[in-house]
């Protein structure tokens, strides 16, 4: 399975955290990342977003149907993110749009089996997949890209 964890792009400040919208820089970051993803994703994939406006707006840049999952709201545990993605048994590709430090926690757990707090920049994409090589289950980090490197 391919799992793409995508952090929302840069957002405005605001008292109501779930309603904060992307800045114009954030909208550009989201559309560049979306373009990168669309050139590389298989034609069919699942797109799941946190209910926060900044995540949903980031996901919208892909121009595909979005499933909003309340369990991906800010503060999501690694367990919630992994369950929302259907990792590791989901067939095909799943794109999750969420928040920090939640995505970094999930990545440390998935890739390193650790409780680390990995850095994931705004608008960045982490693409991981699982495979069996010589009888061993492996997790491969296939790509990590942030808007400044796209």
């Amino acid at each position, binding site marked *: 399975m391919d799992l793409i964890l995508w952090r929302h792009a840069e957002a405005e400040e605001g008292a109501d955290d779930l309603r904060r919208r992307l800045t114009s820089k954030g909208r550009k970051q989201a559309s560049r990342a979306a373009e990168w993803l669309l050139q590389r994703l298989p034609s069919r994939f699942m797109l799941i977003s946190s209910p926060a406006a900044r995540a949903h707006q980031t996901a919208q840049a892909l121009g595909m149907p979005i499933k909003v999952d309340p369990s991906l709201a800010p503060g999501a545990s690694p367990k919630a993110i992994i369950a929302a993605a259907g990792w590791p048994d989901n067939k095909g590709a799943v794109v999750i749009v969420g928040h920090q430090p939640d995505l970094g926690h999930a990545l440390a757990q998935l890739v390193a089996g650790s409780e*680390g707090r990995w*850095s994931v920049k705004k608008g960045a994409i982490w693409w991981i997949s699982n495979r069996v090589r010589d009888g061993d289950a492996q997790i491969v*980090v*296939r790509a*990590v890209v942030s808007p400044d490197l796209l």
Partner: protein
Amino acid sequence: MELILWRHADAEDGADDLARRLTPKGEQQAALMASWLRAHLPGQYTLLASPAARAQQTATSLGTPITERSLAPGASVAAIVKAAEKYKGLVIVVGHQPDLGRAAAQLVASARAEWPVEKAAVWWLAGDAPARIKAVVSPELL
């Protein structure tokens, strides 16, 4: 410390491991990665390569490498870090698996593990241990 771990591209089979050369596909992979690196590298960096022909050839697609014998296949994490620490600024290490994957696991997660690093892939690490993964790029997803 800023460190780029770059695994050699696809290579031919051969009895003499250090003499194995890149396949045409490997040459393409190396050239693709070199052009991505050129677009994103700072002006100053140091390019180190294992003495194995496939690593030398991969590195040469970017520039003239400094050959480090300690980066030959089987290099320990300590050897890789020591080679990189001799230089200031960004250091690129062109080497082998599972050596690079062990170094990444150690530097990022303080873990004794062999992380998969695909042929010709680049792992860009930043900061002192625990290092941050700044970018991972491979030819398939470039």
